[in-house]
């Protein structure tokens, strides 16, 4: 007997179909896994990741996953229990730190810490990598490089296939890449971010993704430092805590370092989620002469998301939309309008609103954005539900993760030649990007094969 079902349904992978990565039947669109020359390596500077997620465990490079949250010079959460980190074949970042004395000293310390005989952890300090509190990184990793998976299920909870495994038909933009998670805190600490970028270079990542901002006290709100007030820059007057001289130097060096690294390998940054002019820092470093890529968000109808910055961005990519109800724009969910339309002007952009979300991987079980109803740890002998393994994600974080996977796929397929530097890789991305609308010529969206983004929300 066919059960009654809900009529209104959306494709969970619309964002990959719309960008030409998958066909509507979720097969590679004019490319094949067999064509992968060499799987691309993506360094992901974000939070920790639930590395055992069934769709992610094949994507995460456990031996190189690095945590800077709790340990100053980093720890290896994927190597817990081993005596030493072993020979990992690090790259050479010396040229990057020329003229940057603070970065040079940190590179020296980091290089010593990465010696083969070093312990994965620093003494008694544990990495801060509990999967339970790894929601953001888990979503980002899935959008970049999740693989379709089969997982054992508990027959007492799920009526699944007779072979005892449940298919999880989900994948990221590049289901062949490997991801090196570099987990960080949101402590505004320049040293931590310098080490994260240096490490991303040392692992010789093909792509670096930064789905977050960096709260540099001088570059996050640069306009405040341009206002002279009571004889001082306003930014200095209102700072809640002192910034030591050493940190001032390091913040400057970090900005230079990011640009230098971007010449070697593309640095893909989230542009911000609050209509920031020219995007947040360091996305706002993007320019024609560097490899920083600033990514805005586009909804499933092909309109820039209400919250996305617009000026100065490199590309736009799919994400979830949000309502806006202010002098800048009125873009409201039709569902809300059915309830009340009080105060809604006749002239509005409600038709631009899309309720399509971007589905990402989530922390299985209790943690994450969509927590399981089960209050106990995930059973080892089979999952009880799969809803908590995925979530509805959004913001320019989601968009930049999709672009990171897109570029990783381009690299893996050899469409970005292996010797290409960050600027050449960015040029390839731009060559694959087209305007979605004639009236928004600057809003360009990547499409594998150079086609045009296909709106999924009619």
């Amino acid at each position: 007997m066919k059960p009654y079902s809900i009529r209104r349904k959306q494709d969970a992978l619309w964002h990959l179909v719309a960008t030409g990565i998958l066909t509507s039947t979720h097969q590679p669109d004019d490319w094949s896994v067999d064509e992968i020359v060499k799987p691309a390596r993506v360094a992901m500077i974000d939070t920790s990741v639930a590395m055992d997620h069934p769709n992610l465990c094949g994507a995460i490079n456990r031996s190189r996953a690095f945590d800077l949250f709790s340990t100053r010079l980093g720890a290896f959460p994927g190597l817990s229990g081993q005596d030493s980190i072993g020979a990992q074949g690090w790259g050479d970042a010396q040229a990057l730190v020329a003229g940057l004395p603070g970065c040079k000293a940190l590179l020296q310390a980091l290089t010593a810490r990465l010696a083969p005989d070093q312990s994965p952890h620093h003494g008694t300090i544990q990495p801060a990598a509990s999967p339970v509190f790894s929601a953001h990184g888990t979503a980002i990793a899935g959008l970049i490089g999740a693989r379709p998976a089969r997982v054992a299920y508990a027959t007492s909870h799920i009526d699944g296939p007779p072979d005892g495994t449940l298919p999880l038909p989900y994948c990221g933009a590049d289901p062949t890449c490997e991801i090196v998670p570099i987990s960080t805190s949101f402590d505004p600490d320049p040293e931590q971010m310098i080490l994260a970028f240096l490490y991303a270079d040392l692992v010789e990542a093909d792509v670096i993704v930064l789905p977050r901002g960096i709260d540099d006290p001088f570059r996050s709100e640069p306009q405040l430092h341009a206002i002279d007030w009571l004889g001082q820059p306003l930014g200095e007057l209102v700072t809640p805590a002192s910034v030591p001289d050493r940190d001032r130097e390091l913040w400057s060096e970090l900005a230079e370092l990011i640009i230098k690294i971007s010449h070697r390998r593309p640095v893909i940054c989230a542009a911000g989620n609050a209509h920031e002019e020219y995007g947040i820092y360091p996305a706002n470093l993007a320019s024609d002469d560097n490899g920083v890529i600033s990514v805005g968000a586009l909804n499933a109808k092909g309109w820039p998301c209400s919250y996305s910055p617009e000026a100065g961005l490199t590309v736009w990519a799919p994400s979830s939309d949000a309502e806006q109800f202010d002098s800048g724009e009125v873009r409201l969910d039709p569902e809300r309008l059915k309830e009340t339309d009080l105060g809604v002007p006749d002239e509005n952009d409600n038709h631009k609103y899309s309720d399509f979300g971007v589905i990402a991987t989530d922390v299985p079980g209790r943690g994450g954005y969509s927590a399981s109803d089960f209050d106990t740890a995930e059973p080892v002998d089979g999952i009880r539900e799969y809803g908590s393994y995925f979530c509805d994600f959004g913001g320019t974080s989601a968009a930049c993760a999709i672009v990171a996977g897109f570029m990783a796929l381009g690299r893996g397929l050899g469409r970005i030649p292996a010797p290409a530097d960050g600027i050449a890789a960015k040029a390839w991305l731009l060559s694959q990007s087209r305007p979605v609308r004639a009236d928004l010529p600057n809003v360009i969206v990547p499409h594998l094969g150079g086609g045009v983004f296909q709106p999924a929300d009619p």
Partner: protein
Amino acid sequence: MADFSIMKTHEFLVTPLGLELIGRAEPDDATGGASISRSAKSVQMALNRNRNRNRNRNRNRNRNRNRNRSDIGAGPDWGILEPWEERAKLYELRAEWMDLPLPLPPSLPELREHATELLKKQALLSLPQYAGRRGEIRIEAELELSRYLRPYGIESHGGYDATIGLILVTMALTDEIGLYFKDRWNVPRPNQVEPRLRPYLAAPAHASYPSNHAFQSFAVAFVMSRLLPEHPGSVQLFLSARRIAENREWAGVHYACDTGAGHKLARMILPVLEKVLEKNMLAAQAEWF
């Protein structure tokens, strides 16, 4: 390598109730699509919108439930039951935190140099333009939650009981942990090293290194950074914690090295707190996601 055969036979669809796993194949398909064909296997997935913008505005609209401001009160009513369960877990894991590599405190000659910096702050603090900082120091002498809640915009809204409870339990546990480390080195307070210092507040009876105000405040900031990394308030909370810690230097009851040690200890102990406070953190997280 990616196995796209799974994608040939199955797909996920998003419905208003959650994620639906659909078999693409006909019921007699040998791959197993039959048994789950056209049936929704789970509606566990809440359709969350993760976006670090305007979260509070939306939250307040939806989350006030039947509460109003007086349910939580303006401050004095905030409190928790003795966190016996968390304390028990903390001591169960004592081997994981009692030997964290906090640097040795400075020597007495070094402390005297540090105290000179505090004398400079003391001289400045008496100036009229520092009246605001004096007020902060007085308020922060006791546990004062607004500094921790304001960055998230939940200072005066109901619906965040578990988040506030998490902050209070974190404070309670780290207070005790801090005393343990203070006792190890028994570093004298600045005015014991430099008699010309006249602390703006009475120096507490316990040792100086590390600063518990710094340790507790940064511990809350690191816990919240794990909980809500994408919330702009999580960065602001670090700055707020630093301000609270530096105010203790301005008050002449802590050296700058005490602040630094409190920050280091908070960073190092986070993975342990994450285990001890997992239930509390999950309950708090549920108020935001």
